[in-house]
């Protein structure tokens, strides 16, 4: 009886392990090579719902807590990163205005951890509308998200 119970518990544990998402550090050839900076960071908040007007393209500035700096000289705990057309999956977002951007992140959610290739100043990479709800705060440079992958911890 006891052995049977152990077997059932073991079986359940195996199911749980196999069903849980595999950890993924978000590394791929693009994120490790694009731009001058590469970080893993957690999105702290989304200040307000992203505008949903398909006729108009825009970039939205988001606030991140830096977890790891993989490339580039960055000495900041918090970074402000602009994502282009944030309602779109990153692998479908690139167009004429944005240039070469992408990643595997499907949906931008507060609390999410992202591995990103970045560069700045944003004006050198992007020419279009920017919504920056942190404008009146001291943000330092706004970084342009070139490649954004999901990180599963």
């Amino acid at each position: 009886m006891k052995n049977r119970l152990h077997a059932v518990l073991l079986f359940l544990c195996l199911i749980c392990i196999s069903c849980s998402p595999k950890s993924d550090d978000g590394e791929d050839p693009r994120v490790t090579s694009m731009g001058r900076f590469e970080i893993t960071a957690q999105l702290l908040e989304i200040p307000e719902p992203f505008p949903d007007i398909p006729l108009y393209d825009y970039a939205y500035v988001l606030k991140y807590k830096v977890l790891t700096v993989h490339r580039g000289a960055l000495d900041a705990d918090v970074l402000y990163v602009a994502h282009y057309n944030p309602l779109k999956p990153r692998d479908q977002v690139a167009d004429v205005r944005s240039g070469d951007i992408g990643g595997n992140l499907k949906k931008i959610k507060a609390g999410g951890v992202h591995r990103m290739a970045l560069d700045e100043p944003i004006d050198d990479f992007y020419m279009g509308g920017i919504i920056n709800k942190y404008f009146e705060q001291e943000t330092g440079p706004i970084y342009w998200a070139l490649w954004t992958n999901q990180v599963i911890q």
Partner: protein
Amino acid sequence: MRMNNERLVKTMNHSIRITVFGSLIMIAGLCAASSLRAAQDSPQDGAAALIQEIKSKGWILYCARSDNGSWDLFASRPDGSHKRNITNTPDFEEAAPLLSHDNQKLLFRRLPKGATIDHDLWGFQGRLIVADADGSNPRALGEDKEFPWASWSPDGRRIACLDRKGIHIVDVQSRQTIRSLPRKGIYQQLFWSPDGKWFTGTGNHAGAQWSVVRMDALTGELNPIVTFQSCTPDWRPDSNRIIFSSRPANQSPTNSYGWTQLYIADGDGQNMQLIYGEDGFHIYGGVLSPDGAYALFTKCTADGGGAEEAGAPMCIMRMSDAPVIAGPSPFLEPKYPGANSGPVAPLTGGWEPIWTYAELFSE
């Protein structure tokens, strides 16, 4: 006494008859005058009078679909008469004419056949073409996507262009960049003022996109005109005021995000005034006549001004009639209680029109 009474009654009847007859004539006269005035004030008659007023005031130039479906440049009298295709290039799409201030040269963009004109990105698209003012002698000034958002200097010898790296003053003859300055958030629709002292454009300002701004062409100092949902700015001929499209927040919920109206404001952003609004339409491409007396614009049911399709109906109104609110507007009417309902002269379909009083063509 009886005789006297009969005469008195007779005289009274006669007087009553005369009074009634006179009153009827007066009433008929008043009615006739009233209906005549109503007829003169009707939108149709007002528009007809406006058309008569403007029909010989130079030429308007615009882009539109030609009979073969491609975009060409057209010219017509401001009443729409004497329309002519001035480029007639079925193998290209041509758009966005811009006359030099001396009315000698024309800039426009030439795209590959079948290319879609993007209502926001058109200044980056295709090759910049410079031609004589009547569209003859077209020649490419650069390669594809070069010299984006080009607009004329006052003397027509230079153009200002806008790209990611900044605003660049380019000598047309040598094609060399003479001077550059930071764009400070401006991202499209750059226009150099007729006096050469300013730029206006659409950009980011104070965290807000779709702001219309003015920049000192010498120092690069920038001031906002309006910082909410605005675009397509252009100059009044005196370089003191800027005409632009704007879509205020919290309009009547007749569509998902409101309608776009035409406004004008001083160069420092003060004295913003409505020119034209009409619920159900987005008003874009606003320009003023060379004397500033008339506004020319497009009205489109779809946002974006119709560049991706076949443009939109163009309209002309007197600035002295502004503000004009055409049709019912629960949002605009309380804000502009003294607004007129017209008159507005309707024209053919087009996109990004301009107006010159120069006699570029013979009838």
